């Protein structure tokens, strides 16, 4: 049965109080906007504009290319300055469209027109999502129209909306649940039209009582949507752990949620679905938390995609102390940044700045076999043993101990008293194994 939690996991310092009660404010971009053509899992989109072209707000500038891909939309009006590789959050150079903002925000025709989603067919809903460039906004960026196209629509029993936001410091999903409750519910209703046998479950961690109160009211009149309060623990928002906590069903890394009748989506994604389908507004904005002890005025901002990260820091009053580490995303799974000169993408959720780097200040020592990693691993595998294989680059051994079940949540590295870089080593082993599999 649904336990509302899972075995293992950790309770890191959550730091959410810094921004929890800060309503979102709109941040308009000052500089050029950069739209990387790869903001999602799968093939990069193809740029369909060239240098010198005029673009409008809501205009498609990147076309989905291939089976797994999605579109890229311009969030401002202006002139295309260049189509060239630009630095992105992962530290790689990605082909991007650079738009010089004319600050007019001239919309494309029909932008924002309301649409009656109840008359739309399933295929229409999915193609709208694709054209609107909607991806999973929890971080992975899997194109939503593909995720919501399982082999068999009627076999989906649970549609789970991930409102757990288990990463420390992040409050963007929380603010969305409070401020955009209505759109969230509409987004869910739209998706439920795709799955006639499904029941929707909004999962919220019990450290968000305000969101729970508001959503409880919102679901009261809904026959197919319910609220499930789950225990606060990291990584409660991980797909497999969330499915287990809400439905009691278990899946392993070789399965997809649809194999056990479930589909999981993020809160923010649902709001984007609502905007795209019911309001003809493609994905051009997202809510970003700017927080951390080095930030002067932590807060939540509605940001246009393509905005430079340095403008985020500026919007939060800049840095009060020189940050040692900057992170895009949560401190557990986010990416460390060496430069702020990168664009906000659909999957950006936060900019965190810390005055001290806990990783650099903790020396790595020998493993004392304390077993803490085993106790916290949500995948119920044995990081200590996997590490022995990972260090020797023994991929066979790594696989034999279920190394591919690792979800890279980082709990083992977090808890290790010897400061061992377990997750990092597992990431490398997993990449190497996946590369080998591709070759076969």
């Amino acid at each position, binding site marked *: 049965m649904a336990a509302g939690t899972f075995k293992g996991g950790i309770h890191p310092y959550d730091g959410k109080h810094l921004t929890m009660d800060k309503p979102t404010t709109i941040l308009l971009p000052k500089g050029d906007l950069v739209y990387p053509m790869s903001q999602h899992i799968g093939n990069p989109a193809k740029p369909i504009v060239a240098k010198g072209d005029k673009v409008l707000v809501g205009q498609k500038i990147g076309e989905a290319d291939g089976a797994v891909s999605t579109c890229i939309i311009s969030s401002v009006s202006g002139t295309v300055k260049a189509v060239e590789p630009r630095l992105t959050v992962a530290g790689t150079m990605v082909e991007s469209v650079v738009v010089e903002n004319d600050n007019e925000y001239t919309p494309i025709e029909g932008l924002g027109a309301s649409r009656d989603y109840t008359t739309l067919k399933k295929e229409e809903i999915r193609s709208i999502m694709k054209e609107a460039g909607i991806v999973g906004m929890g971080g992975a960026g899997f194109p939503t129209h593909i995720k919501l196209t399982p082999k068999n629509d009627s076999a989906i029993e649970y549609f789970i909306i991930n409102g757990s936001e288990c990463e420390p410091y992040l409050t963007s999903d929380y603010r969305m649940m409070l401020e955009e409750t209505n759109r969230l519910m509409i987004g869910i209703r739209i998706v439920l039209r795709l799955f006639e046998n499904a029941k929707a479950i909004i999962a919220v961690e019990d450290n968000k009582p305000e969101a729970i109160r508001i959503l409880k009211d919102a679901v009261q009149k809904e026959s197919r949507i319910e609220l499930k309060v789950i225990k606060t623990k990291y990584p409660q928002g991980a797909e497999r752990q969330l499915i287990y906590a809400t439905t009691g069903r278990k899946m392993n890394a070789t399965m997809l949620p649809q194999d056990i009748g479930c589909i999981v989506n993020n809160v923010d994604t649902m709001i984007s679905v609502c905007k795209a389908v019911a309001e003809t507004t493609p994905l051009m904005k997202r809510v970003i938390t700017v927080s951390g002890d080095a930030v002067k005025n932590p807060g939540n901002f509605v940001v246009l995609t393509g905005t430079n990260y340095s403008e985020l820091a500026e919007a939060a009053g800049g840095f009060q102390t020189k940050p040692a580490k900057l992170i895009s995303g949560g401190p557990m799974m986010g990416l460390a940044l060496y430069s702020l000169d990168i664009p906000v993408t659909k999957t950006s959720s936060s900019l965190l700045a810390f005055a001290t780097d806990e990783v650099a200040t903790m020396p790595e020592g020998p493993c004392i076999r304390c077993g803490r990693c085993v106790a916290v691993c949500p995948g*119920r595998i044995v990081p200590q043993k996997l590490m022995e294989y990972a260090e020797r680059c023994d991929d066979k051994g790594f696989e034999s101990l279920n190394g591919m*079940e690792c979800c890279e949540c980082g709990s083992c590295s977090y808890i290790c008293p010897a400061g061992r870089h377990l997750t990092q080593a597992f990431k490398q082993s997993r990449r190497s194994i996946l590369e080998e599999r591709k070759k076969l």
Partner: protein
Amino acid sequence: MKEVESLKDMYNVSASPHVRSGVTTAQIMRDVAIALMPACLFGIYQFGFSAFLVLLVSVTSCVVSEFLYERLMKQPYRPYECSAIVTGLLIGMNMPATIPVWIPMVGGVFAIIVVKQLYGGLGQNFMNPALAARCFLSICFTTRMTTFAVDSFANSGASSKGLYLFNYGFAGLDGISGATPLAAMKASQAAPSLLDMFFGYHGGVIGETSAMMLLIGACYLLYRRIISLRIPMTYIATFAVFMILFGGKGFDVEYVLAQILGGGLILGAFFMATDYVTCPITKFGQIIFGVCLGALTGLFRVFGGSAEGVSYAIIFCNLLVPLIEKITMPRGFGVGGKKLAK
């Protein structure tokens, strides 16, 4: 992209996660050392200066051996890890106060150099270093390791004070008496009362006499979540069941309790069997480990020649750890799960 002037201008980059729990190896070892303090202090109170000297010598011996070895091998010396201190304390606690001080010194060197460092240092030893040292010393210096009562120098008739100290340590200057309750029971003599055993008013090695002081330390470790009850509880419970079945006294609560409190069981179960390096890392493995320990301790005590059995049971089970881990590897979350029929 702007050219980056120098590495200094760049922010730190590392793989996620970017936060740490704050618990470190050094902290854990320090906590274990703190937890051993009540029993050590009681030992010193009970056996006097000689007990203090034994503890001091064994700790110093361990710390110095580790320092010298790591220096010689050009390894980074990590004094903050305190693990040598814990080993030293445990060696000292496992010795009678009547021991000549050169024996804990030899024990410290053996534990650190032979058992720990030669096998790869911290985390790599396959036996508990302190217990391996104790067993090594018990075999080499059986009489001295099991002498709990000595006549004072004046009454001993020894010809030279130097030779006397060499044989009986400093405790001999005042004279110390008291066989261990287990030895007394084994020889069918009267054992001290259960309450005396619990508080520690009986003979034995420096650190094992007071069950109460040991349990105070154990509670501290439990509170700090350094150890869990899994190993100690299964160990003691299995041992109790074994003694009821095979102890020859049937369901005799007093006898079983005396067996639990009278020897090294509490010290072994809470502080030595729970040694991270030499116990199974899997939860279920720890339960099997505890059961093996209990059964073996019972076996050694009931059917063995010596009244004690804890040390040998633990180091023997240390050898089983790789096997136990192999058969208790968890399956992985959802591994083997079935897809729903479509």
